[in-house]
């Protein structure tokens, strides 16, 4: 262990972890990265394309290199940034993207082949032959290039989501964010302070500077204590704000349990949707590096990160050898001073600028550049070119300080365009961008602590004023106010490769190649080279790449411009975006009132939208679903069957103008419907196409219940409200859905009246008293309120009986019990479908949005006497001339199967589009007919009864000869349902 003094780790506790199987020690407060460095581990992974040995570069979420697979088994998470992984006892991590051991990666051969992997290599190399891409090239590339691998096991952890509302969201808890949160908190605003780190303080934690003459932690702890005491302030640590959405909505992920071995019963992460009236963006800045030859060796880090490791985590850069700093600004010198103060030997500060002076007791090489590095698995020396020539320094690590880029990402969502600030040589947030978001501190270009504190207070004051609140006087601590004096030195030219984007292995040469190949606009540059893609989104690379491209084109950096910024700011796991539940509870389901009865009685269920419906009921001895379905169909035709039809939408319509309203809604006449009667109703879309069908029951002069199909219950209700509120608000109509309130059971078959007579409380069920299409309120089973409708979907004598939903289960059981001697049989949706096909009733397959009332044989129903929705457009020339009609089909050879979806052709006609005469909508095996039957829309169907035509199923290369018959296979005269 090469721990330095001080730091924010708990030395009283030692915790253990393993990396690539080897055991190490660390302390609470460590990240995996800091603990690895403290254990002298510099080599942590292999690069994306070339499999170059790589080490830790940064100390925060911008880390491009140190991606590890954290945890094991189903919990293994690839591409975890070691810099963001909090150390816990028992942590297990592995390096990625190598074949064989990390220090002897067989795929390092790619590095020798690097000329073949230059920018755009995918597009150039693997073009021919085309068929090779999928089978050969892509799998090979995927094996050779890439990041971590998924476990391919189900994620055992839970995630959830939540919603927060605030007056002010403060993003980032560094000096600017803390000042802003404190001011707003004291002003009484509802504040959320979010930071991706597990500790408040931001960059202050990485610095040695004093606040009011004391360590910064004292001020941070005092502010934290006060914020925690305020009921109007909520602190979210380990929480990244990953995106800004319209009207002040922010997406955030809180890593609730990622710092624990397992989440226990809690969630692993929470997705927060935060609605904030205003936000202060205090996201800080990210240091950039300076590309030079072979600048990617383990041990070469960002200087500011090296300083953070020394100050916060009490570790050097993973080596006991001396350290050098390469800088183009004063901030690099601060790193040297801090390292020395902690006892890390500094070999030299190499400053590319001219006329600079030493700020402490170290060797300064002014006007000098690093031009080469040596060390296969870790840095052991660098070559420096000065005005006096070349020199080699033996160093174990090199800190590179290229200036700071404000974290403008969130301010640049919504197409906000950052602007170039010549003073700090960086992009700062510009005009446009998300409304209500105020940048402050280093992310606004105010990088010194004193500036950041003041700017945070300024931003909060501005936000509070817009919220109608007054900012309190807030004395800010005395702090450093140095400027970096960064020089525009972007890279060190040379012949060898100099990396710009470590994660994607993009070098200065690749950018030069993109330039040569005319991929010069930044969006092209990005896609041609893959610069700025993948998990780090080029946080340490993008601006440097722009500068290199600007140099090549002779344009300025602002002229070169930036790519569009989009969410997420850092990677977000799919698990947390999915949130909530997986498996059976992935989406809510609706159960019918007889669900539990059906389950106990052998039902197989089918999903119908959100509903679970009984599909058929298997009895002992039945080995194929057709056995059950045929039995259920025959039971209805011969005796009595019971089917839960609760799922049909039910809308209660009341009001003085209810009749007029419904007459305008249905294509057929409703005004003439008498109280106590039901009418079949057809609804059209305004364009004249058939939309939905159902029944309309008139319970009183001013009270109706209408039913919709199961699938359209929601949309029809929405359209009814549209008609009520938008089209005819002058009508006195009230609507309310009652779908769930009533358990509705179809009692169908010749013995249905007999069965019902055993349940009703003295109600006269005779044909005279209660004819076909009658409806009435009544009581059953000794006083239970119920509604009875004499309607039929099967063509048999049939009723639908509705009772309060809580009695649905008991009613089903009672009907079965009371009808045992009548052969009462429960039937499911399959039998329901067979029965309606046999009867020629249209359903969803016929009402598919492309058909008209005329096509389903209901053209005469569409009233020409009134203006109902869709009636006028249904008489348009094109629709009125429609000659396709719903017909029945029977196979000529009774053992053939009619296949829905088949297209119809006259015998002998070519099987092509020009000769297509229609299609089969529904088909089933009919136990009544004794063969497969179908319903179809057939050209000129009315005049083709008896004709034999071909039903072609080109998907399966099959064809069946079918005879055209009327669509009513059962009781075409309708005598049974009126019996």
């Amino acid at each position, binding site marked *: 262990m090469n721990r330095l003094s001080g730091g924010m780790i708990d030395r009283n506790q030692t915790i253990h972890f393993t990396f690539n199987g080897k055991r190490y020690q660390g302390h609470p407060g460590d990240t995996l990265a800091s603990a690895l460095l403290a254990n002298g581990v510099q080599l942590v992974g292999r690069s994306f394309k070339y499999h170059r040995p790589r080490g830790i570069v940064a100390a925060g979420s911008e880390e491009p290199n140190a991606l590890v697979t954290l945890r094991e088994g189903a919990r293994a998470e690839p591409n975890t940034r070691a810099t963001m992984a909090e150390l816990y006892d028992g942590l297990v991590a592995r390096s990625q993207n190598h074949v064989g051991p990390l220090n002897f990666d067989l795929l390092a051969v790619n590095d020798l082949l690097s000329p073949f992997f230059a920018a755009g290599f995918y597009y150039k190399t693997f073009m021919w032959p085309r068929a090779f891409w999928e089978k050969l090239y892509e799998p090979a590339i995927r094996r050779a290039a890439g990041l971590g691998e998924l476990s391919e096991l189900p994620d055992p952890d839970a995630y959830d989501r939540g919603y927060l509302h605030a007056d002010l969201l403060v993003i980032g808890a560094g000096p600017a964010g803390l000042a802003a949160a404190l001011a707003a908190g004291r002003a009484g605003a509802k504040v959320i302070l979010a930071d991706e780190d597990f500790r408040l303080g931001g960059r202050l934690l990485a610095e040695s500077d004093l606040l009011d003459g004391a360590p910064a932690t004292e001020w941070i702890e005092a502010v934290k204590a006060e914020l925690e005491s305020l009921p109007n302030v909520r602190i979210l640590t380990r929480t990244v704000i990953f995106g800004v959405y319209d009207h002040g909505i922010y997406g955030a992920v809180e890593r609730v349990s990622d710092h624990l071995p397992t989440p226990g019963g809690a969630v692993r992460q929470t997705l927060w949707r935060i609605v904030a009236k205003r936000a202060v963006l205090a996201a800080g800045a990210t240091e950039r590096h300076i590309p030079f030859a072979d600048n990617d060796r383990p041990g070469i880090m960002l200087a500011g990160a090296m300083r953070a490791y020394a100050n916060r985590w009490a570790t050097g850069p993973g080596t006991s050898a001396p350290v050098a700093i390469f800088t183009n600004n004063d901030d690099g010198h601060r790193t040297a001073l801090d390292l020395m103060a902690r006892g890390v030997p500094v070999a030299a500060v190499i400053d590319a600028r001219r006329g600079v002076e030493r700020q402490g007791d170290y060797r300064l090489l002014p006007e000098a550049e690093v031009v080469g590095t040596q060390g296969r698995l870790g840095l052991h020396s660098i070559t420096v070119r000065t005005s006096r020539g070349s020199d080699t320094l033996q160093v174990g690590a090199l800190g590179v300080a290229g200036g700071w880029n404000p974290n403008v990402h969130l301010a640049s969502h919504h197409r906000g365009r950052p602007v170039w600030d010549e003073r700090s040589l960086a992009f700062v947030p510009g005009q446009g961008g998300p409304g209500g978001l105020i940048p402050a501190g280093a992310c606004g270009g105010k990088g010194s602590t004193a500036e950041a504190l003041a700017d945070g207070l300024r931003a909060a004051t501005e936000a509070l004023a817009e919220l109608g609140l007054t900012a309190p006087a807030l004395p800010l601590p005395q702090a450093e106010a140095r400027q970096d004096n960064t020089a525009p030195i972007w890279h060190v030219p040379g012949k060898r490769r100099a990396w710009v984007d470590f994660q994607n292995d993009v070098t200065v040469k690749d950018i030069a190649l993109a330039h040569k190949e005319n991929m010069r606009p930044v969006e092209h540059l990005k896609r041609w080279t893959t610069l700025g893609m993948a998990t780090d989104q080029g946080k340490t690379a993008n601006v440097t790449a722009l500068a290199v491209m600007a140099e090549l084109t002779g344009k300025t950096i602002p002229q070169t411009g930036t790519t569009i910024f989009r969410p997420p700011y850092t990677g977000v796991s799919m698990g947390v975006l999915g949130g909530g539940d997986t498996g059976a509870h992935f989406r809510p389901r609706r159960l019918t009132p007889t669900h539990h009865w059906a389950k106990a009685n052998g039902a197989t269920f089918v999903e119908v939208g959100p509903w679970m419906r009984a599909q058929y009921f298997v009895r002992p001895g039945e080995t194929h679903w057709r056995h059950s379905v045929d039995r259920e169909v025959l039971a209805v035709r011969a005796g009595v069957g019971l089917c839960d039809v609760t799922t049909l939408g039910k809308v209660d319509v009341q009001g003085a103008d209810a009749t007029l309203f419904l007459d305008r809604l249905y294509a057929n006449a409703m005004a003439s419907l008498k109280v106590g009667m039901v009418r079949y109703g057809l609804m059209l879309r*305004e364009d004249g196409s058939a939309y939905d069908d159902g029944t309309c029951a008139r319970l009183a002069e001013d009270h109706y219940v209408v039913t919709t199909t199961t699938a359209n219950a929601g949309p029809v209700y929405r359209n009814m*409200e549209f008609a009520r*509120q938008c*089209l005819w608000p002058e009508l006195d109509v009230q609507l309310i859905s009652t779908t769930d309130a009533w358990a509705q059971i179809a009692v169908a078959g010749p013995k249905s009246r007999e069965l019902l007579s055993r349940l009703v409380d003295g109600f006269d069920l005779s044909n005279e008293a209660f004819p076909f299409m009658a409806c009435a309120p009544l009581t059953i089973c000794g006083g239970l309120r119920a509604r009875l409708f004499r309607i039929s979907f099967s063509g048999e004598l049939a009723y639908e009986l509705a009772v309060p939903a809580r009695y649905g289960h008991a009613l089903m059981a009672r009907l079965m019990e009371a009808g045992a001697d009548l052969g009462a049989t429960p039937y499911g949706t399959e039998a329901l479908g067979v029965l309606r096909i046999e009867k020629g009733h249209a359903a969803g397959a016929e009402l598919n949005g492309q058909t008209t009332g005329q096509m389903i044989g209901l053209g005469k129903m569409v009233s020409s006497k009134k203006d109902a929705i869709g009636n006028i457009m249904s008489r348009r020339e094109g629709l009125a001339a429609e000659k396709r009609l719903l017909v029945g089909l029977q196979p000529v050879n009774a053992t053939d199967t009619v296949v829905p979806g088949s297209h119809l052709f006259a015998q002998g006609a070519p099987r092509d589009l020009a000769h297509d005469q229609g299609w089969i909508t529904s088909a089933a095996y009919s136990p009544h007919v004794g063969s497969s039957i179908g319903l179809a829309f057939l050209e000129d169907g009315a005049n083709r009864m008896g004709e034999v035509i071909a039903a072609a199923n080109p998907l399966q290369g099959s064809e069946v000869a079918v005879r055209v018959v009327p669509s009513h296979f059962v009781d075409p005269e309708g005598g049974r349902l009126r019996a």
Partner: protein
Amino acid sequence: MLIPHPLLGLRDAQEFTYLGDARLIDRPTSGNEAELAEYVYLRDNPAGVHRELWFHEQGDRSWLVVTRNTLTHEILGAELARDVSLARKGATA
């Protein structure tokens, strides 16, 4: 997005179902086929300020006329569609 509901204040757009051009309120009553064809099929699709219908399906079931800039998503106002419709009918009566 947040929709400024005239009765309930700011509500998340996820609670709403979008329909489109608010001109759908003006359903022709003439019975003229050509007029209805225009009503059904011809809509403006402006890049800019647009009056459009939103249904508060997961809320109070009000249809709203929302004035929104389709380029910026800025919302300039929201009214109950019922009020808009009644006002138009009153104006033409």
